[in-house]
């Protein structure tokens, strides 16, 4: 299964990163706990950053909402599929919605009951690969003896990869540009007044506010583009 290679490798890198840069005792324990609960690549990498800088919980939760909006949007198209599942199963399936799992779930063309079993099987497997990858990475990273300077680029690379995939769809390019420009602008303004370190720490919430305002203002234009894209 390709998901095994993907989640295993990406999880492993996140685990190594946590062990090398997190400065925690027992990194494997925290790696296992966090990966089992977050079930998200971006959050797993950001977790290292939070642990390192003790970022204020308000900023953390704000970014958690943003990152999960993508999965919530996926959920909209899974409402029918999950409806008949038992409550416990349904709650687990919902927690396990991620990019790859979702892609396989919507691509599945089985009849409803079989499809629900398939989704559960898929979610359990993907979840397992992910937790195993992160935990093994933390174990390996803990016993690493060579210097690992620069391994933190894995987080940057992960976001670049997600952004690249999103920008294959033309409709996403303008929103991505809005987000990028807003972030650069806010960071530049804050850096000039507060200094670089404080600016980096405080940039997310003002950027989000600016982004949402700009995206609401551009709604007519961007939704017009959406219809054009769909009919093309």
């Amino acid at each position: 299964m390709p998901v095994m290679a993907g989640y295993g490798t990406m999880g492993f890198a996140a685990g190594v990163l946590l062990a090398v840069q997190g400065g925690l005792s027992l990194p494997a324990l925290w790696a296992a706990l966090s990966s089992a609960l977050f079930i998200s690549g971006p959050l797993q990498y950001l977790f290292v950053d939070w642990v390192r800088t003790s970022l204020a919980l308000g900023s953390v939760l704000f970014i958690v909402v943003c990152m999960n909006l993508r999965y919530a949007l996926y959920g909209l198209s899974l409402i029918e599929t999950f409806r008949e599942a038992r409550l416990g199963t349904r709650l687990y399936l919902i927690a396990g919605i991620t990019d790859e799992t979702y892609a396989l779930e919507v691509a599945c063309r089985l009849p409803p009951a079989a499809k629900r079993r398939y989704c559960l099987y898929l979610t359990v497997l993907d979840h397992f690969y992910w937790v195993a990858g992160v935990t093994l990475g933390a174990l390996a990273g803990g016993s690493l003896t060579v210097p690992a300077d620069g391994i933190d680029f894995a987080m940057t690379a992960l976001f670049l990869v997600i952004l690249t995939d999103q920008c294959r769809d033309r409709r996403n390019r303008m929103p991505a540009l809005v987000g990028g420009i807003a972030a650069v602008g806010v960071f530049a303004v804050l850096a000039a007044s507060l200094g670089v370190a404080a600016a980096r720490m405080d940039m997310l919430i003002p950027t989000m506010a600016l982004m949402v305002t700009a995206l609401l203002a551009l709604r007519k234009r961007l939704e017009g583009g959406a219809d054009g894209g769909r009919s093309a």
Partner: protein
Amino acid sequence: MTGCSMRYLVVLIVAVGALSWLIRALPFLLFGRSGEPPKLVVYIGRVLSPAAIAMLVVYCYAGYVRDRPPAEHLGMLAEFAAGAVTVALHWRWRSPPLSIAAGTILYMILVRLF
């Protein structure tokens, strides 16, 4: 060991896990019975996702501005080169593990040079 406090760590993991779950469950809670979500909600959900990822890319680069002042490190040449390679590989081959591993290894080499 620098790290954060144990209390912060536990609160962080529980809060992030719980909130992630809640946000993912929102569409099922709100539209599980009635069906159609409002257009504005769908629109914001759709456009906010790429915008937030782009913001996080900038956030990562802001971290490099802080840790490796551009004036002393050839204007962040290592960061931009590794980023460009990651995007180019991913655009062509569409394999996240390949793109991430190649970009990261290249960066680890470049930071030792510049």
